[in-house]
């Protein structure tokens, strides 16, 4: 382990992303695009057949016509599929899978069969020839009508479902001002641009997968367990992931279905979900109904906060979207009470989606805070400052680093918050109502154990490898930069990087904004070990000017080992490796959570300001600009980091205005299961984004001083937009997304 106290310095940044050229030329290969090592002509196509009822039992699947159809190799159904020793699910990581082991149908769209054929067209056509008979049962649907039936989660996980501090009842009774409201967030589907894709092929008892995933090690372990084969018999490769946002953080049913199909037909099976198949079988963010009550003194001090959430869950397994989590920790309030409850539904499983908990949590809490500020006739920013929490109120412990006040000030100044119209509906430009709004962003900083390997190759070039993933997060770039920097300042553009292969040292799931913070310290460790090995080698190399030097006398600089006391004495990595018989010099490194991490809370924050123009006749909202400043520790690459933070804000705009999964109330099937009617922002929806970071290193969190940035961008942004809409129109829409019809009728 390297020392946690190493003084951080800024790494040399790559001018452009490591994988940029591969991505702009189409040479970056995603999971479904591999044509070997198997013969390319051997590839067969699997197509998942889904249920068309929400609840019941399959009585029969007549596959005669499908099996006889041209090009069809197999039709797998619960009635003929090989039996697997399916282990009990272990949510939320190990999902309750539907892999043709029984005839139960728990939601509309559940996988119930797989057709394998020589072409995709043949497989899809054959699927239409199946005759499927069900015994239907009444389904649990329309959860908003069944809020009274909510129950506590069976497995609340780290978060207790009920959480209190202080006496909220007494505090509300004494409060000068109380605001209370119900705020609703919708079901959302991740919809990464690359559909979930798997190519599975067997080599004897060994299973190979190309799989589009956020967690190659998770897939490897999950499928090994499902098929009862040794973990080492499974190899998972995924050099590029075309977005995930949480939906590729678990192994869903299509992966074992591909493997099962490949076993049955004895050939590689490529199984790619259609866009419409990504609404149900691969998780969704649940809808949350949040009852929020805030009590304050007349000068704006919060005295009590209450937040009771009810959300939909699948009958298959519990998943809790901790939207009340932020209420416990964002502001200093002596009394807080939160509860989280579930209503079981015949729907696909809920799961993590970008900033799980904090995305809806900040959307609703920061809307309620805006309402409180308006009731107090107070600047909403001032309300946040009055209730600023210097330490983590939920756990009564310090933050490793928190500089949110500076972020508020910087962003407010750049935005021109002081020119805010204090009276809603008073700033008019032609046919547009103009409004300003703000909100606080926050997301925890996470770290997990990770490993990496660093190698000095013949010629002196460096290689770094880790079994992590790059979902567009810039992981290739982070690895190259960190490796280059840790080896004493190489040009990061010369470093060779490999990730996305489960034969590499293990790294965590790319989720929870933790990959950079977890994997880069492991790279630092591996690089330090490599320098040590080079030092030990060179000490024995008589031809070297450094012959006989002790490793403590040497340091690495610019691709060379240099004597600390005499910089003229130096030897290049290339020469040392050459004298080593051109055998690469390699070392493994690892990193774990900092010791004593439990004494602190590590958390990122940000301040988000939005300006909107609302057309007073069409009620369409134009987000003109968003200004945000984040306190996320050190940003390792300005280009990729700012891009990712901006992407988060785009998600926040989407949360505010656009996306919602609509479930048919009778059939329980998603009606807008496509990208024409499941609206995510297009280019024209996004105004000017002005994003900065404070760049204050959080070295108590990790030696890089860097916290993750993948998720914080979405937090706060939705509320900032919604609050700006209120400021523009005087209308408060408490149900996301805020579509033109809701503004018109509010």
């Amino acid at each position, binding site marked *: 382990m390297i020392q946690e106290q190493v003084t951080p310095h800024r790494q040399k940044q790559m001018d452009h992303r490591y994988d940029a050229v591969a991505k702009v*030329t189409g040479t970056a290969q995603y999971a479904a695009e591999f044509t070997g090592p198997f013969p390319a002509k051997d590839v067969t196509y699997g197509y998942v057949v889904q249920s068309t009822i929400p609840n019941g039992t399959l009585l029969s699947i007549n596959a005669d016509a499908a099996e006889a159809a041209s090009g069809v190799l197999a039709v797998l159904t619960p009635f003929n599929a090989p039996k697997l020793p399916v282990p009990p699910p*272990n949510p939320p990581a190990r999902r309750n899978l539907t892999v043709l082991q029984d005839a139960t149908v728990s939601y509309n769209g559940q996988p119930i069969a797989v057709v394998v054929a020589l072409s995709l067209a043949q497989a899809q056509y054959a699927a239409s020839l199946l005759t499927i008979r069900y015994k239907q049962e009444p389904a649990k649907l329309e959860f908003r009508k069944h809020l009274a039936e909510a129950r506590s989660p069976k497995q609340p996980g780290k978060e207790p479902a009920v959480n209190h501090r202080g006496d909220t009842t007494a505090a509300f009774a004494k409060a000068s001002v109380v605001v209370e409201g119900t705020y609703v967030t919708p079901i959302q589907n991740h919809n*990464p641009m690359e559909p979930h894709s798997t190519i599975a092929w067997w080599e004897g008892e060994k299973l190979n997968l190309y799989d589009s995933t956020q967690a190659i090690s998770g897939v490897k372990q999950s499928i090994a367990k499902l098929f*009862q084969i040794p973990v080492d018999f499974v190899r998972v490769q995924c050099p590029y992931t075309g*977005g995930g946002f949480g939906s590729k953080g678990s192994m869903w049913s299509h992966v074992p279905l591909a493997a099962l199909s490949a076993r049955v037909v004895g050939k590689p099976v490529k199984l790619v979900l259609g*866009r419409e198949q990504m609404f149900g079988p691969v998780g969704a963010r649940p809808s949350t109904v949040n009852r929020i009550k805030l009590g304050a003194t007349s000068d704006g001090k919060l005295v009590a906060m209450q937040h009771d959430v009810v959300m939909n869950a699948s009958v298959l397994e519990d998943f809790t979207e901790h939207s009340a989590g932020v209420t416990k920790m964002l502001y200093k309030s002596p009394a807080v009470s939160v509860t989280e409850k579930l209503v079981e539904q015949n729907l696909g499983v809920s799961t993590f989606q970008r900033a799980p908990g904090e995305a809806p949590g900040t959307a609703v809490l920061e809307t309620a805070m805006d309402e409180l500020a308006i009731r107090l006739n107070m600047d909403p920013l001032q309300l946040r400052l009055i209730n600023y929490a210097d330490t983590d109120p939920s756990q009564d412990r310090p933050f490793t680093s928190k500089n949110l006040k500076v972020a508020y000030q910087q962003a407010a100044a750049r935005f021109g918050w002081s020119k805010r119209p204090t009276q809603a509906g008073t700033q008019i430009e032609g046919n547009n109502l103009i409004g300003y709004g703000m909100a606080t962003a926050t997301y925890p900083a996470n770290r997990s154990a990770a490993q990496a390997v660093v190698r000095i190759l013949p010629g002196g070039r460096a290689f770094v490898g880790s079994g992590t993933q790059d979902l*567009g997060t810039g992981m290739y770039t982070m690895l190259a930069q960190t490796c280059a920097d840790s080896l004493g300042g190489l040009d990061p553009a010369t470093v060779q990087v490999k990730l996305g292969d489960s034969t590499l040292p293990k790294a*965590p799931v790319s989720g929870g904004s933790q990959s950079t913070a977890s994997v880069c310290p492991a790279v630092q460790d591996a690089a330090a070990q490599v320098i040590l090995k080079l030092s030990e080698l060179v000490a024995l190399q008589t031809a070297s000017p450094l012959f006989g030097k002790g490793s403590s006398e040497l340091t690495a600089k610019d691709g060379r080992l240099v004597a600390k006391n005499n910089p003229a004495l130096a030897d290049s990595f290339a020469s040392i490796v050459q004298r080593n018989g051109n055998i690469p010099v390699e070392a493994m490194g690892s990193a774990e959570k900092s010791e004593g991490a439990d004494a602190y809370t590590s958390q990122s924050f940000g301040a988000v300001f939005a300006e909107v123009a609302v057309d007073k006749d069409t009620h369409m909202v134009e987000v003109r600009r968003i200004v945000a400043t984040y306190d996320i520790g050190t940003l390792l690459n300005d280009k990729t980091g700012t891009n990712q933070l901006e992407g988060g804000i785009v998600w926040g705009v989407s949360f505010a205005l656009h996306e919602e999964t609509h479930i048919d109330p009778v059939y329980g099937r998603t009606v807008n299961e496509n990208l024409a009617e499941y609206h995510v922002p297009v280019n024209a929806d996004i105004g000017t984004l002005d994003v900065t970071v404070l760049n204050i290193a959080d070295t108590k969190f990790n030696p890089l001083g860097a916290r993750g940035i993948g998720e914080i961008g979405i937090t706060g942004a939705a509320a900032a937009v919604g609050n700006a809409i209120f400021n523009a129109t005087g209308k408060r829409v408490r149900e996301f997304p805020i579509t033109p019809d809701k503004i018109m009728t509010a």
Partner: protein
Amino acid sequence: MASCTDLEEELVRDESVATPHEPEMSRRNFLTATTALTAALAVGLPHAADAQSTTASAPRMADLLLTINGKQQALPIDTRTTLLDLLRENLELTGSKKGCDHGQCGACTVLLNGRRVNSCLTLAVTLSGAEVTTIEGLGQPGNLHPAQQAFVDHDGFQCGYCTPGQINSAAALIDEFKRGELSQVSFETGKTDHPQATEREIKERMSGNICRCGAYPNIVAAVRALTMGGVA
């Protein structure tokens, strides 16, 4: 707080009870059972019994002659094959991406006789005599098209999956501006005579390409640079 790192804890916990001590029998049972099934299927497949249902389901083949990235190709194809599937599944030109397969995302955008189209809704069989340019033909590593270079310079992507479509759109958009073509923004701004490549015009004209990562600001920056660079 809630986080996907919960997953990691689950996996670590699982690992401690993982496979080395699994009952060997169950694995053997599954593997032998499936091996037997493979054999049964190989025998049982209705190759010979191609009765009327197979005839009805048999692909209707057609001969296709078209030019892809400057190379003429003569191909027998199933009439159902879209240009996108032809590129990705038959010709190993996987730079064109399938994001929705229904013309709703733009990831499959290619240039057909110089104009941008959704290859997922283009039946390949209709293209006899046509010229198609994909991202692989636009430019290659070491020989980037200016649109590709602009996306590199401005980091106009994250996951990269929508990127080839975005870049083909950007390349086509330059020509569209040169021809003086309009968008709805041209009407909204009253500039219907050779509209300039303003930021608002660019955003509207790039709106047929969805980027779920949300790299729009950088995409706009890349296209702006391209429009100002006088790229042919």
